[in-house]
């Protein structure tokens, strides 16, 4: 009986120690493990121009425009606190739209514009049929 209790205590202690170690490691990792920087992060600690980073946030409504060459898109990414202008040459993913989440891979140029090589659309946790979405916001969601 005592041996069993000893093993139980040891197992629980081991579990506690592992969890504690993991939590410590994770809190240390917090910033490095982020998949992308938000515009507010860039404003707080601007990376050197030319460093490859990812920028994530919401595509500001009304900010998307095509350049005269037809393949370059300009838009603004915002996170509610700051905004960053982005330019991208190439084909946008289907789910890229104004007011939706986006992750851009690329680098800041010296003027503070983010030059993207890749654009990924970020999906949020909301799933709904088109009728429901249309009733919520009738803007661009019914164009499909």
């Amino acid at each position: 009986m005592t041996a069993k209790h000893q093993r139980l205590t040891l197992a629980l202690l081991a579990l506690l120690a592992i969890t504690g170690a993991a939590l410590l490691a994770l809190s240390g990792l917090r910033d490095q493990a982020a998949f992308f920087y938000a515009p507010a992060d860039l404003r707080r600690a601007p990376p050197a121009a030319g460093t490859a980073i990812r920028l994530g946030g919401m595509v500001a409504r009304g900010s998307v425009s095509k350049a005269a060459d037809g393949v370059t898109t300009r838009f603004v990414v915002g996170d509610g606190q700051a905004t960053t202008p982005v330019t991208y040459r190439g084909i946008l993913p289907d789910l890229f739209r104004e007011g939706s989440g986006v992750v851009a891979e690329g680098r800041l140029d010296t003027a503070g514009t983010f030059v993207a090589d890749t654009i990924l659309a970020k999906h949020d946790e909301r799933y709904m049929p088109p009728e429901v979405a249309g009733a919520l916001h009738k803007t661009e969601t019914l164009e499909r």
Partner: protein
Amino acid sequence: MPSIHALANPARFLKVARPLTPWLFWVGVALIAIGAWAGLTRTPADYLQGESVRILYIHVPTAWLGMGGWSGLAIASVTYLVWRHPLAHIAARAIAVPGALFAFLCLSTGAIWGRPTWGTWWQWDGRLTSMLLLFFVYLAYLALARADAERGGDGRIPALFGIGGTVLLPIIRYSVVWWNTLHQGPSITVSGSAIDGAILWPLAFTLSGFTLFFAAVVLMRMRAALAHAQVEARLRRLVA
């Protein structure tokens, strides 16, 4: 704890497991079939994702069982280490193969969904990377448990590994909350679901169906392991 002791007896376990297995299996398969049919024909497409939203009816159960499988494996490992029940060791090893398979299915269905939705098959974000790690940890457990058995070990080392791997479960769960990730945050939380009811309901069928199917596979593997041990014991008696 009399209930654990009672089920730890292989003969009594088999008496329960043998009739239970076909029930779990066939009810599970029926629920999966209903869920798949409803998910493919009876629900609307998503306003943004379109038809690819239907992958969620498989993706969510595989993610749940990939992680739930490891929880079961860890509980069995603790039970084995503390109470030394040989059945707990057999249960942990029986869970590892379907657990690894479901973790793999979770990663592949996620990749298939990610291509049209995000525009990429794979990115090293917190959620995807931690789930991939869980898959590798399953494989490591399988290799370790086999090596331990071949060496004639008593299964204590794989059980310790089973407890250690549990660290990944909260990391996977909270990766989308702690860090910026490409993967979206949790849709279904205690406060409700961000998935509209019209899209959500077949998930209940596939989720419960795959869970019963998983349990049936684990019971089958445990019975096979017990039968194997019996054969080996008999052979040893013949040789002696």
